[in-house]
């Protein structure tokens, strides 16, 4: 029954007019920039605030530990003869940032070092001082008992643990931290895209209604064709945007990888080198399976289709955006609910709760990619969910086109849920 040629014309118009629009160009460029900024900003702030020269006074009763600390970093640590009570006063006055008291008995494995500071010192500072003191105290104590090199190595050694994921293709090394992060990002991108493109559909329906062109169009094509054309056109637009981002992202990663290595490898000292290289390993991108990419795009598309059918119905039932709030509310709830389950689901992606939530067609677009990122899922879950979503879309677009067909001809009044239900049942 659908007239292909007209449908193609509508798809073409919906796609091309938007592709050329300023909003599309601006959002294509801005969205990844904002995303990168959100990811990089915290690190940058940390790095920038870390640049500040900090110095802590060291009151040392052992006579050795303090020297070692200063030898290690003479800017960070400074020995002082002042008594703790005096240091306390100057800390209160704000003359110094903090001080460290190293008691005599610490070399006997008793007592404890104390780190005094104003306000909060920050995690990085505290953990650095703790590890510096620990390393030095341990070395001195080992020296005292003439420990062999062997013992020292044993002590310094960390137990290595591999993290392996077994899938049908075999086993692969996995960094679950990275994959969890990746899943989150994918979930958030889909979340944003469903809102963004849903709003595009809703506005577009509303624009046709308020500009009154819809009746002219409706005298040439069936409302269902117009709706399908619109949804398809905007879906293609979304895909285009994703492709642009993916290509740009891949190019950026290729360019950035060597830079990261250079940047990380830049510090001379051996200890930091080791640390840096392990950090660099965390930063280098582990292989992302093509299934995950396909799943991501597929769930984005299906999610878009399901939600755009809903948004289109809302758009056709109101005259202006401010009236749409009430009708939009249930849709927004449906999109937000899976966000609340993002953490529990990615933490234990095989739990019954995670499986069932991620298979609900309205939640799947966000939760499925998150699970797919951390786990290789059995086929029935992915395939079944895709099937469910397709069914949901077919039912929704049918209901929506019935609301749409009546809604586009109704001016000047805001429809209630009850009326929408009536429009669906009308023949």
């Amino acid at each position: 029954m659908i007239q292909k040629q007209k449908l193609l014309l509508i798809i073409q118009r919906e796609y091309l007019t938007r592709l050329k629009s300023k909003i599309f160009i601006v959002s294509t460029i801005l969205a990844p920039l904002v995303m990168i900024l959100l990811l990089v900003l915290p690190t940058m702030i940390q790095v920038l605030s870390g640049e500040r020269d900090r110095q802590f006074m060291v009151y040392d009763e052992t006579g050795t530990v303090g020297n070692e600390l200063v030898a290690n970093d003479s800017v960070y640590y400074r020995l002082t003869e002042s008594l703790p009570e005096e240091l306390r006063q100057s800390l209160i006055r704000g003359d110094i940032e903090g001080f460290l008291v190293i008691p005599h008995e610490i070399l006997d494995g008793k007592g404890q070092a104390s780190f005094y500071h104003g306000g909060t010192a920050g995690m990085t500072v505290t953990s650095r001082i703790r590890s510096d003191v620990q390393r030095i105290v341990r070395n001195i104590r080992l020296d005292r008992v003439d420990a062999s090199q062997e013992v020292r190595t044993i002590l310094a050694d960390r137990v290595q643990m591999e993290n392996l994921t077994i899938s049908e293709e075999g086993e692969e090394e996995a960094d679950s931290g990275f994959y969890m992060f990746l899943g989150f990002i994918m979930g958030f991108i889909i979340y944003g895209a469903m809102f963004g493109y849903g709003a595009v559909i809703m506005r577009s329906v509303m624009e046709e209604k308020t500009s009154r062109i819809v009746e002219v169009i409706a005298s040439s094509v069936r409302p269902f064709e117009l709706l399908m054309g619109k949804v398809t056109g905007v879906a293609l637009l979304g895909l285009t945007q994703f492709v642009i981002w993916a290509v740009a992202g891949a190019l950026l990663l290729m360019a950035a990888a060597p830079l990261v290595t250079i940047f990380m490898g830049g510090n001379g000292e051996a200890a930091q080198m080791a640390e840096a290289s392990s950090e660099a390993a965390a930063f280098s991108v582990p292989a992302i399976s093509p299934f995950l990419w396909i799943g991501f795009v597929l769930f984005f598309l299906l999610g878009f289709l399901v939600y755009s059918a809903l948004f289109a119905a809302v758009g056709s039932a109101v005259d202006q955006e401010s009236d749409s709030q009430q009708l939009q509310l249930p849709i927004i709830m449906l999109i937000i609910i899976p966000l609340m389950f993002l953490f529990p689901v990615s933490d234990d992606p095989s739990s019954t709760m995670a499986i069932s939530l991620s298979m609900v067609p309205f939640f799947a677009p966000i939760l499925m990619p998150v699970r797919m990122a951390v786990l290789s899922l059995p086929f029935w879950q992915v395939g079944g969910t895709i099937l469910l979503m397709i069914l949901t879309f077919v039912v929704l677009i049918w209901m929506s086109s019935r609301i749409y067909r009546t809604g586009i001809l109704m001016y000047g009044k805001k429809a209630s849920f009850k009326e929408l239900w009536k429009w669906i049942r009308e023949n």
Partner: protein
Amino acid sequence: MPGGYMNDPIVSFRDVSKQFDEHMAVDHVSFDVKSGRIFGLLGPNGAGKTTSIRMMTYILKPDTGSIEMFGQPVGPETQKKLGYLPEERGLYKKMKVGEQLVYLCRLRGLSRNEARERIRYWLERFGAYDWIGQEVGELSKGMQQKIQFVATIAHDPDCLIFDEPFSGLDPINSEMLKQAILELRDQGKTIFFATHRMEQVEQLCDDIALFNNGKLILHGDLSKIRSSYGHNSIRLRFSGDSKFLNDIENVRINNRSTNYAEIRLLDGADDQDILRRAQDHVRIHAFELVQPSIQEIFIDSVSK
């Protein structure tokens, strides 16, 4: 095109009904429309004109009955032969005039090149070709109305439907539209014309259908309908106090103003008697025995 469908009805409504909730918007309506005529759908707001049109344009489907156009049931095929100017008008504001017109023509089945050619012709005809690259939203209201009109007729439809075409038009565009409608009729196109302003259509319509509360109360050739009523109305132009009109019995007075009245003679009223009484009270500038106006015919039909 003239001659093609000359004798067969272009459009026929067969016992068509459409109900919204409890309200019968169109109530068992039947009529035929022949080609090359201007057909007026008349009646007050809410009488069922727009609903009838929406069923003709296949936007709505009748609950019962059937509508045929060019000998086939209305549907996607008949839509291609239609030009429709809805009461609520509008275009895509962000789209350029040319792109938009091409899009609308192609939706009605024209090829891109055909569409371009026709659009060029009509835009030039209305002195609007220079706007082809501008966004519709940038144009003045009058300009937009011209573009809308071109959008309605550019695909050369055999049947044109105008719903309240003159509402919101300035006098210049109004006259332009009137001339274009007459020209299209002379080319053999069938033109539908819905309005609640009945005096507007007297000069334009060949046939009329009068609607009230969803029912078709009268339809047919306008001049025949009028002559069937005979010269039973008076047009009186005068100056002076019009109070005497209130005392005349067995008449119905329409379109009354300070110096004009249309007086419909009912049973027992005598035109010469009215002339004498008018003479006693006011200065008479014109006194003419005429056929009733459409409005009078409408009121007469409703009251029956």
